[in-house]
């Protein structure tokens, strides 16, 4: 076929573009993922009976929400060709480092022994459960990204995985009895790395276009 004819074919009946489509696709996928993660945490693991609003809990949720927000922003930029993801990337890194700083400060100045700050009571189960809650989010996120046009499939897969990790962590935080920022920083982080690695591996396969 001549390219000219191909162009006529593409343009015919093309109609106005629906700019909201990618937003709905990714937003819908991630929204559903958050819902699933929260419901699974509440329904299967159960909400922590001691959960109350105090400074450490607020910090934990603020960190996870900021991380999720940063990841979604980065993902949204990676999904559309020609946008520079550098600043959004810096945002995610900044949130993670800031939490690391807080964790370190608590480690240095709190009276609690370091071992308790780091290991708490549930360090053996936390990463596993964060990763498990993140799994549906990873699949949904990859599906959502297929509605966009990521030109760097591997990076997009990795960040989809990180986003899924943050969603899983957010659900798990409802169940988790730990308060130590160091615990959250290390073990939640480890849990999030699992879906991130999966996304990194799956990206080139699933996000080609």
């Amino acid at each position, binding site marked *: *076929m*001549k*390219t000219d004819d191909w162009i006529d074919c*593409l343009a015919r009946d093309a109609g106005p*573009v629906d700019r909201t489509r990618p937003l709905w696709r990714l937003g819908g996928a991630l929204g559903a993922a958050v819902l699933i993660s929260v419901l699974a945490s509440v329904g299967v693991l159960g909400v922590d009976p001691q959960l109350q609003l105090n400074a450490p809990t607020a910090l934990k949720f603020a960190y996870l929400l900021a991380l999720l927000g940063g990841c979604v922003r980065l993902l949204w930029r990676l999904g559309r060709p*020609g946008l520079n993801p550098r600043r959004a990337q810096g945002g995610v890194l900044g949130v993670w480092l800031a939490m690391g700083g807080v964790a370190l400060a608590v480690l240095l100045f709190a009276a609690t022994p370091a071992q308790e700050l780091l290991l708490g009571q549930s360090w053996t189960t936390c990463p596993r459960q964060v990763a498990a809650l993140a799994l549906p989010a990873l699949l949904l996120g990859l599906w959502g990204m297929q509605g966009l*046009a990521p030109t*760097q499939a591997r990076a997009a897969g990795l960040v989809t995985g990180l986003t899924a990790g943050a969603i899983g962590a957010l659900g798990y935080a409802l169940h988790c009895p730990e308060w130590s920022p160091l615990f959250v920083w290390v073990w939640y982080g480890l849990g999030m790395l699992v879906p991130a690695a999966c996304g990194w591996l799956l990206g080139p396969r699933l996000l080609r276009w």
Partner: protein
Amino acid sequence: MFGGNPDAPGRELACELALNSLEAEWAPLWQRAQAGDEQAYAQCLRRVGARLRAYFWRRLSDPGEVEDLVQETLLALHLARATHDPALPVSVWVHAIARHKLIDALRRRGRQAAWLDYVDELPEALEPGSEQDLGAPRDVQRLLAELPQRQRQAIECTKLLGLSVTDAAQRLGCSESVVKVSVHRGLKRLAAWMRGET
């Protein structure tokens, strides 16, 4: 980590100038196209196609392969057009997609990583256009014939016969949204075939 290499200042300036002149040419057409003006869309795709041809030509040198890739990239642009951020120059968006398609094509051919670096080193702007359309060896029409029935019929009615979506829906006995979805899915499958996936 996520790509993008710092350019020398002189090259950056040259790129900017080249992209600016492209932008002036494409932006008004593209705006009308995005709003639903089919003629502006076709005209815009024609200009973009000429640039793509020149851009790929510099790097591939086999005319058939170039034309195949032009058609594949035009389809990719069409399918991704909702992802263009209106605040971003359309030429930058097109360039990102063209580069993506070129790298993918080189990778498909099993070129060495050195070739991929080579793509990075080239000036970022698309070269001046070439008007020759020699036709592509890959027969899109034959690919179309292999689509599932509903998708093929929807594409034939709206894209080849030029029926409106309403008329096509009537003829095929389904709703308008089914026609639109079938066209979109069909084109997506076509794009996958063009990439060499089965």
